C-alpha cells in the first residue's frame, strides 16, 4: 500500500507543484485558504476539468480534439432551448447524445477517412459552433430552466459543491477505466505504439472512436453544468478557447501530446493548477492580462521539464526521495575497487 502511494507520487510529480503553489498562494494572500474560496476554486476547476478529462482520453490515443469548446456551446443551447417546451430531462439527454454524436463523427472521420485529427476537429469546431448558433439564432436563451437545476452547479452534497463531486467521481471513474479495463489499457497501447497495438490485435478504429466519443460526451456534460450555472444558454461566446485550456491542463499534468503517456490524476492536478492560479491572481489583484502571460510561462516550464532529458533526470532525482543515493552508490563502487 505504501509503495503504491509512493508510486502515485512518482508518476505524478505535478502533485508537488500543486501543493507548492498552494503554500505560496497561502503565504501571499490570507483569503486564499478560506474554505469558501477553496470551494470556489474547485467549482471553477471542475467545469473546465470535465473538458480536460475528455481531452486526456483523446490525447492518450495520440489524437487531439479542437471541437470541445463548440460542443460545450451546443450542449448549453440545446438544454436551455429544448427546456422551453419539454421537461429539462429530455434536453439533458439530447445534449449528451449530441455530444457523443459529435465525438463519433470526429472519430469516424479520423479513422475511416484517415483525415488528420487537427483538420477534422478544426472543421467540426466550426460546424458545431455554426449549428449551435443557428439553433439559438445567435441569441442567448434565458429563463427556461427550472430553478431546481441551479443545484447542478451551486448545490452542495455532503458540504461539497455538486460539480466538484461530479468531477471527482468522473475522474475516479476515468482513472479506473484507463487503468483496469481492457479498453483503457488499449487506449494507452494505441497512443504508445500504434503498430505494435495493431499487430497485437487491438481494434485501432474502435479505440480511437471511443476516445473521441468520451471527449464529446464530457464536453457536453460541461455544457450542461455551465448552462445550469449561468441559468442560460449562449452559442457565440460559450466555450471559446476552452479546447486550448483543456490541452494546457493535460500538458501541465504531464500528458504527452505524442500519446501513450500521462495520467488522469495529472490532468486533474493540471486543471486545479490553472483554476488556482487565476483565482489567486484575482485575490492578489494581478492584472488579468498578466495572468495569461504567467499561465503561458508555467505551461512552457512544465512541458519543457517533461520533454527535455535534463528535466527528466532532475525529476527522477527529486522523485527518488533519497537525495544522497548517488553518493552512496559512488562509495560502494570505490570500496569495491579498494
Amino acid at each position, binding site marked *: 500500500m505504501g509503495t503504491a502511494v509512493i508510486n502515485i507520487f512518482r508518476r505524478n510529480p505535478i502533485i508537488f507543484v500543486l501543493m507548492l503553489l498552494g503554500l505560496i498562494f497561502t503565504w501571499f494572500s490570507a483569503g486564499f485558504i478560506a474554505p469558501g474560496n477553496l470551494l470556489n476554486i474547485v467549482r471553477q476547476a471542475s467545469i473546465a476539468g470535465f473538458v480536460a478529462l475528455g481531452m486526456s482520453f483523446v490525447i492518450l490515443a495520440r489524437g*487531439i480534439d479542437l471541437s470541445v469548446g463548440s460542443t460545450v456551446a451546443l450542449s448549453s443551447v440545446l438544454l436551455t432551448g429544448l427546456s422551453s417546451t419539454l421537461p429539462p430531462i429530455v434536453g439533458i439527454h439530447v445534449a449528451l447524445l449530441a455530444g457523443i454524436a459529435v465525438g463519433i463523427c470526429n472519430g469516424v*472521420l479520423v479513422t475511416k*477517412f*484517415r*483525415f*488528420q485529427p*487537427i*483538420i*477534422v476537429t*478544426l*472543421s*467540426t*469546431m*466550426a*460546424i*458545431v*459552433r*455554426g*449549428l449551435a*448558433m*443557428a439553433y439559438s*439564432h*445567435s441569441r442567448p436563451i434565458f429563463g427556461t430552466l427550472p430553478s431546481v437545476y441551479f443545484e447542478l452547479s451551486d448545490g452542495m452534497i455532503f458540504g461539497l459543491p455538486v460539480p466538484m463531486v461530479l468531477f471527482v467521481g468522473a475522474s475516479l471513474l476515468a482513472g479506473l477505466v484507463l487503468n483496469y479495463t481492457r479498453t483503457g489499457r488499449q487506449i494507452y497501447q494505441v497512443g504508445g505504439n500504434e503498430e505494435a497495438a495493431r499487430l497485437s490485435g487491438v481494434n485501432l478504429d474502435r479505440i480511437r472512436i471511443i476516445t473521441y466519443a468520451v471527449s464529446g460526451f464530457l464536453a457536453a456534460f460541461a455544457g450542461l453544468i455551465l448552462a445550469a450555472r449561468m441559468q442560460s444558454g449562449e452559442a457565440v461566446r460559450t466555450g471559446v478557447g476552452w479546447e*486550448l485550456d483543456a*490541452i*494546457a491542463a493535460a*500538458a501541465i499534468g504531464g500528458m504527452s*501530446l*505524442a500519446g501513450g503517456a500521462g495520467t488522469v490524476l495529472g490532468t486533474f492536478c493540471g486543471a486545479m493548477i490553472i483554476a488556482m492560479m487565476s483565482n489567486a491572481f484575482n485575490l492578489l489583484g494581478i*492584472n488579468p*492580462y*498578466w*495572468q*495569461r*502571460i504567467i*499561465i*503561458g*510561462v508555467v*505551461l*512552457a516550464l512544465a*512541458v*519543457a521539464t517533461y*520533454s*527535455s532529458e535534463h528535466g527528466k533526470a532532475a525529476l527522477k532525482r527529486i522523485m527518488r526521495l533519497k537525495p544522497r543515493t548517488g553518493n552512496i552508490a559512488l562509495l560502494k563502487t570505490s570500496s569495491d575497487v579498494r
Partner: protein
Amino acid sequence: MIADAKRMLLNSNLVVLIVVLVAAGLVSPHFWTSENLLNVVRAASLIGIVAIGMNVVILSGGIDLSVGSIVALSGAVAASAWVGNASVLTFIGLPLLLAVLVGLSNGWLVTLAGLQPFVATLVTMTIVRGAGLVFTKGQPVYANYSEEFLYLSRGWMMGVPVPALLFGAIAIITWYLLKWRVIGRQIYAIGANETAARLSGVPVNRVKVAAYIYSALLAGVAGLVLTSRMGSGEPGQAGVFWELDAIAAVVIGGTSLMGGKGSVWGAVIGALMISIVSNLFNLIGVEPEWQQVAKGSIILIAVGMQMISDELAVFRSTFRTSSAVNGEKS
C-alpha cells in the same frame, strides 16, 4: 516555371478553384464584376499573407498557432508608436522586430527545448496575446494614421488594391525562396524526412528556426496592414482565430500537415477560396451561422478531394512504371 504551371493545372485544387469561380458566377450575377472580384482579392490578402507564412512552417513539419496573437501585438505596438509620435523607423520596425523575436522564441522552444510545435506555439500564442493586452492596458489604441500609411490597406496601384499587390509580391518571393534557394529546399527536406535531412548535413535546427521567424514576420506584416485598415490597434480582438483560418487555407490548398509536400500557391489558392466562398455567401444572403457550418464542411471536402487526387496520382505513377518495365522487357 512551365513545368510548375503544368503541375498546377493537373493539381486538383486549381481545378476546384476554377469550378468554384464558375459556380459562383452562375449563382450570383454580381459575382463576376471587377469591383467584387477585387474585393474578394483584398479580403483574401490579409489571411493569405499569414497563410503563406504558416505554409512555410507546415512544410517544415511544424505548425504555428501564435500568428493570430502576433497580428494583434504588431498592430497594437504600431498604433501606440504612432500615437507616441515615434519615428517612421520605430513605427514600422518595432512591430516587425517584435514579431521576429516571437518567431525566434518559437523556433528555440521547438528546437532547443524540444517542445512539440503545437505546444510551443500554443504557449507563445497565450503569452504574446497577454503581452499585447498588457502593453495597451487592454484598451484599443486609436491612431490618426497619415494618408501614406492608410495607402497600405486602402490604396490602389495599377488598378489593383495595394494589399493584394503585397500579397502577390510575398507569394512570389516565398515561391522563389522555397523553389530556388538552398534554405527552401532544406525546408522541404526536413518536412519530408527530418532524420534523413540531418544525416545529409542539413542544419535542421537553424532551418526550423528560420521557418518560424518567417511565419512570425509575415504575421507582423499582416498586423501592420490590419491596423492600417482599421485605423486602430486592437490587442484583444485582432487576429483571434486567424491561426485556424490560416491552417484551413493551407490545408484547402493541398499542403500536407505532415510536412514536406505542397507549395506556396496552395496557400494562395486556399486563401482565395475561403474569401470567394464567404463573399458568395454574403452576395446570396446566407446567414453567418450557416456560413460557419459551410466553412467547416469545405475544409473537410477539400481535404477529402486532396486525398483522392493523391491516391489517383500514386495509382497513375505505379501504372506508368509497370508499363515502362513491360516495355523494356518486350
